[in-house]
């Protein structure tokens, strides 16, 4: 039992100091009927590092890593190259094994990177202020609707049909118990919905994803104006944060709250978690924000330092009157994000976005040339193609090769016959020309 330092002699000595006859005696408050005298039956006993590694490696080997074959999977999770230094620095024990920075004198490292992270998120979203992270993009989206309701004192949110269905569902689950009225527009594969028409004087916010689930990109300025004319807020969702290196910032288009999935920068796919919710807004709304905030201050010597601040919004102070119940967030994922973005810098971040876009254009052109129908006029690094027959069946078939051909829309919008032949195809800097040719061959040649 390599993680347990006490010896049997230690235990006896300690029991003597306590004056207890046995460790069992320390559990005397447990009702007798609920006390267990033995380790729980039917479970294996302790194992060495080698044995555990062997067992879990076997399970890992039964999965097909996205990096081991041509992969075009996106829809809210993207495979990007993370520089080696990110993970090396991330595992420094002073970062990895520290707690939430409640004692600022011994956590200036965490606090300073959170302050830098908040600034980076504000810059790329074009907003005034960002928090220290949420669980993921979907929970951030739900929190944005609740925040918009607090700000506007209204109770009706309009969700775009281009919003990722999982974001829609998390928002519906979270806000449904509070009686929020959600107006959910139907799936919008062609990017033609009229969101402005759905706004009325009871609308607290419009939630729009850009690029949409189907990859469409839009200038949101007219929508922002339509929202503001009716006293509603515009909530912009970004599921591929690399797009912010090329697309106009949501802030510049009039967004009031921006939420994003930050996984693309610094964080691996990890089968869907842990991920990183980004949350940014205007200065005037900061006291209605959920989540932790790091702020600048000075120490007793007048030197600059950082602390958690505006905590009177939070559960540990306000209890049932808090803006959210969130406590633990995605600190280490935020660290990975901020380190990767620091490495990229202005040149790297804008260059990475342009590289992603150019490769996506290249693949779209190759597919079109092979006779595959691409639905999008404009897109960033993901677009929708129409295949012959059922897209999910096609994807399953190609997985055997293996080619991870993309996400069939039916996996996210099940039971809609008109969407069954649609496939979401994502391209990143990790996609090679050989990968592209394999997909073109599979979609264009074999159908």
């Amino acid at each position, binding site marked *: 039992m390599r993680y*347990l*330092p*006490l010896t049997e002699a230690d235990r006896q000595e*300690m029991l003597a*100091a306590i004056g207890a006859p046995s460790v069992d005696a320390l*559990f005397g408050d*447990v009702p007798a009927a609920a006390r*267990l005298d033995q380790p*729980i039956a039917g479970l294996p006993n302790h194992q060495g590092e080698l044995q*555990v590694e062997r067992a*879990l*490696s076997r*399970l*890992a080997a*039964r999965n097909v*890593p996205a*990096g081991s074959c041509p992969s075009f*999977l996106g829809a809210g*999770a993207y495979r990007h190259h993370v520089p080696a230094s990110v993970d090396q620095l991330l595992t420094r024990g002073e970062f990895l094994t*520290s*707690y*939430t920075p*409640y004692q600022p004198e*011994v*956590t200036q490292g*965490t606090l300073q990177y959170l302050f830098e992270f*908040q*600034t980076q998120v504000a*810059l*790329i979203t074009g907003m005034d202020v*960002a928090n220290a992270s949420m*669980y993921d993009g979907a929970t951030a989206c739900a929190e944005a609707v609740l925040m918009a309701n607090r700000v506007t004192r209204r109770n009706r949110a309009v969700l775009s049909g281009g919003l990722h269905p999982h974001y829609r569902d*998390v928002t519906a*689950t979270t806000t449904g118990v*509070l009686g929020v009225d959600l107006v959910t527009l139907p799936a919008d594969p062609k990017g033609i919905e009229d969101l402005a028409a759905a706004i009325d004087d009871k609308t607290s916010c419009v939630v729009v994803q850009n690029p949409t689930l189907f990859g469409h990109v839009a200038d949101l300025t007219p929508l922002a104006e339509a929202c503001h004319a009716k006293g509603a807020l515009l909530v912009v969702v970004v599921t591929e944060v690399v797009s912010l290196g090329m697309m106009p910032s949501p802030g510049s288009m009039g967004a009031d709250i921006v939420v994003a999935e930050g996984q693309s920068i610094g964080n691996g796919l990890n*089968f*869907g*978690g842990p991920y990183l919710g980004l949350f940014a807004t205007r200065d005037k709304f900061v006291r209605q924000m959920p989540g932790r905030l790091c702020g600048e*201050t*000075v*120490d*007793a010597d007048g*030197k600059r330092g950082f602390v958690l601040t505006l*905590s009177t919004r939070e559960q*540990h102070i306000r*209890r*049932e009157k808090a803006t959210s119940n*969130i406590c*633990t*967030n995605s600190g280490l*994922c935020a*660290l990975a994000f901020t380190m990767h973005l620091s*490495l*990229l810098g202005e*040149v*790297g971040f*804008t260059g990475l976005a342009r590289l992603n876009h*150019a490769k996506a254009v*290249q693949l779209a052109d190759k597919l079109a040339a092979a006779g595959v129908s691409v639905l999008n006029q404009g*897109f960033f690094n993901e677009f929708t193609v129409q295949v012959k027959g059922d897209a999910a069946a096609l994807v399953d078939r190609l997985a055997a090769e293996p080619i991870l051909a993309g996400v069939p829309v039916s996996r996210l919008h099940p039971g809609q016959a008109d969407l069954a032949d649609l496939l979401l195809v994502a391209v990143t800097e990790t996609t090679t020309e050989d990968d592209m040719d394999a997909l073109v061959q599979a979609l264009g040649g074999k159908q």
Partner: protein
Amino acid sequence: MNTQGRKTTPDVESAAATDVGTYTGNRALVHEEPLIFELDNPGVTGVDLEAAPAVASRLGGLKAREGIGLPGLSEPTVVRHYTRLSQKNLGIDSTMYPLGSCTMKHNPRLNEKLARLPGFGDIHPMQPQSTVQGALELIDQLAHWLKTLTGMPAVAMSPAAGAHGELCGLMAIRAALQARGETGRTRVLVPESAHGTNPATAAFCGFTVDAIPAEANGRVSVEAVKAKLGPDVACIMLTNPNTCGLFEPQVKEIADAVHAAGGYFYCDGANYNAIVGRVRPADLGVDAMHINLHKTFSTPHGGGGPGSGPVVLSDALAPYAPLPYVVHGADGFRLVEHEGEVEQGAQPFGRMKAFHGQMGMFVRALAYIMSHGADGLRQASSDAVLNANYLKARLQDLMSVPFDGYCMHEALFDDRFLKDTGVTTLDFAKAMIDEGFHPMTMYFPLVVHGAFLIEPTETESKATLDQFVGAMRHLAGKAKAGDAAHFLAAPRYTPRRRLDETAAARKPVLRWAPPAV
């Protein structure tokens, strides 16, 4: 825990400013490190990208963005920056970190290694399920351990953290009440000693919160609960072992009373680490309990997350578990992602998270659990409780104890022993920093004045505990001897001395901005 709203600067003039007298302001191993924005060298980058294919942009008429304002840094600058920042942090790797309720135990590195295997770290949540059978099996194996250890029939794996798990449990309760047609049950009972997340979650889930007072012995009594029960009560949220570090001796009676009144028992499992392998929550009448994998099962806290908060559920609540979840069928493991795919009787209340849960944390937790095994997990909780009782026994003559008797995994003290010394709990905590320890949780639970909540965990050796006892006794003696100045000036040896939290909140500066020219 928090110090917000509390004065953090000492009342008397502290010792003179620590002018180190070096040219750089550095102190040997401790560097003054600027913000990344102040290190900006425009045009420099730490990432080399291949040339983009020459194609015309197709951004739907949008103009490509310029001038974001991100700083340019090379890889060596970045590596040094974060290395220096790390040196301004304490972690469990550095020292004993006895934050009560937070369970700062050793984080085995095997777990980090395994979570990074491409077969776990590089799989996409939307891959065809035939290509992720090992991942689904891992989730199923971890679920099996959690169910067997707790004795509960079901577990919802997707919640992202403890508070998220609380929300999951309360939503399941809400759904079950709705299915029973009892929508009038809108009140949730929460003891005064509860974590702040409990009342916050209840409110976040649309319930009203009714506080149950703590008894003089730090426990919740069945009488106090009964006095609050009624036809409008949805559930009780009870932490067990509780936030005072005590096992609730009447927990079963409380559960029975709540059930008899038609309510459910939500157990806050933040302190489950004290009883793993010694008590099964199912035997206490629990209907739902979250398990903080980042506490009990040692996934790293990471400076504030990510966590993971699976929720074990009783038969009464199991049908309402959220999507998605893993089932084992004839042809392998399958992820149930939509309402149209659920088995007979299941009525999932919705979805908690974009994807399937905190897979990276699942791998680490399962590696930890398998390393310990059934025997080791029981030994770990036994040692955690032994360590806490040892600290209590060695300190109770000098420090004041609010509740007599054995404790569980946390030793709780109050600030009576500091009466008339001019030293507060906060001052004492800052002096512990100078002694090389991370402070305990302070001012929580709220039911104890000036609380010191000390959780050593099972991974501290007796030698470390003895050194900690020595330091605490030294400090308690110093306070009682009238040396308040020692505490008011602390910490002295940290990269920053006490930080002005009041000023930070009064005029918030939440991001860097270029200096005004």
